[in-house]
């Protein structure tokens, strides 16, 4: 199992605010890795920087042994990295189908139908509503659409930023089981979550982020048992 994503000594600033202060981590092929931490710890900032939406001040990000420095965010997608961003960010005025088509933007049109079928299998709800304008979908449906859309690029690595945000418990369970399914089908997952308990239960490994630094890391099951983590993130 090779290393799929390697982040080394990452520093990210918002103007003069030093948001990420030397973060290093890695994601191996086939894993589910989770990044947990309190509000404002820098989880989204980290993912968005890896995905190319933000620029790092310094540090190195390599994906599939390739340095991503200077590679446009739009090019990274074609190499097999997908980010399902915080807040879903589906295209509100476009239909479900059009959103999914945009997800497959970098792929030859001959392969789109095939991927569409796979996404519809994971999310039958999207198939029922393929002509509906995304802005009128419920929050849960929008989350499914955002995940389906990211899958349309056939990513090797899928990064998910708080997929459970604002969803009812039953839907959270469903979303997490889909994440496990995607992983079983061969997609490596980097998961950012507020819901640390759920995240740790599906993940192989975890990193804990505190105000821009990684403070703890290790096996997800062990972390879930650790007293410190329980106190801080699992509500006792």
């Amino acid at each position, binding site marked *: 199992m090779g290393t799929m994503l390697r982040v080394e000594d990452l520093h990210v600033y918002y103007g003069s605010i030093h948001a990420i202060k030397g973060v290093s981590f890695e994601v191996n092929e086939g894993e589910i890795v989770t990044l947990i931490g309190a509000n404002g710890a820098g989880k989204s900032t980290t993912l968005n920087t890896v995905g190319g*939406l933000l620029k790092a001040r310094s540090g190195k990000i390599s994906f599939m042994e390739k340095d991503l420095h200077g590679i446009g965010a739009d090019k990274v997608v074609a190499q097999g990295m997908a980010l399902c*961003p915080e807040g879903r*960010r*589906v*295209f509100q005025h476009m239909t479900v189908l059009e959103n999914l088509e*945009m997800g497959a933007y*970098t792929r030859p049109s001959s392969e789109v139908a095939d991927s569409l079928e796979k996404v519809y299998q994971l999310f039958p709800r999207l198939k029922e509503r393929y002509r509906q304008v995304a802005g*009128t979908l419920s929050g849960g449906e929008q989350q499914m659409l955002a995940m389906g*859309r990211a899958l349309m690029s056939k990513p090797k690595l899928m990064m998910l930023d708080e997929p459970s945000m*604002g969803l009812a418990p039953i839907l959270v369970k469903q979303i997490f089981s889909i994440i496990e399914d995607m992983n079983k089908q061969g997609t490596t997952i980097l998961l950012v979550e507020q819901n640390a308990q759920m995240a740790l239960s599906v993940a192989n490994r975890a990193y804990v982020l505190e105000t821009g630094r990684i403070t703890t890391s290790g096996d997800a099951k062990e972390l879930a048992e650790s007293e410190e983590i329980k106190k801080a993130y699992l509500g006792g």
Partner: protein
Amino acid sequence: MLANLINGISLGSVYAIIALGYTMVYGIAKMLNFAHGDVIMVGGYVAFCSISYLGWPPILAVLASVVVCTILGIVIEGLAYKPLRNATSLAVLITAIGVSYFLQNAALLIWTSNTKVFPNVFANLPAIQLGGTQIAPVTVITVLANIVIMIALTLFTSRTKMGKAMRAVSEDKGAATLMGINVNRTISMTFAIGSGLAAIAGVLLCSAYPTLMPTTGAMPGIKAFTAAVFGGIGSIPGAMLGGVLLGVIEIFGKAYVSTQLSDAIVFAVLIIVLLVKPTGLLGHKIREKV
């Protein structure tokens, strides 16, 4: 009455074609490209030179005009607006006004301030009789051009990959980037299309009102901007509707109220519409869920 209506629709069609450029650029780059009207003027001059100096046939002249304006649009965007992608909208607005003055003054240098008389491009086409009213060929062609452009653009944005990518970029640049869409290239493409349309509008405008000077594009530019807001900025059918209505109101105002006041009437209608419906006639804003 009928003649006025037809003239209004024709003038409105020119506004609509210009407004499409405004609305597409606004939709995608969230900026008001006040130099858009001056691209019309450049388009008019290029066609004028091709016909009067080079003796080219009108079709070729229109083509030349479209090509030059398309390139001009891409260059303006790349040199003036792209470096300001993350700047405040005020900075962008001031830059757009600067580009507008630059184009007008460049035209002044190249073509001087002497008014050029635009040749009658459609001279060999017959006029059409409709219930005792004569309709000039330029009128018919303008309206037809507007309809064709409108349909083509609608199909482009709803059916093609590039067109859908444009809509995606106009909604959320970050999310569009995550799809692998090259946002800068898409914006550049939008300017290209808008400016190409401005060239066509320029030729049509100069054919209907055959005087050409460096400030020719300014007033139609502002009117078309008004039309875009009137119809709902960002909306393609809105630009069409706003443009045509504006043209009709203007011509009727001239015919039945007062020539001097016709522009005031146009803007008064705009203000009333915006008071009642701030997003314009067809502008939409659907509820966003987070």
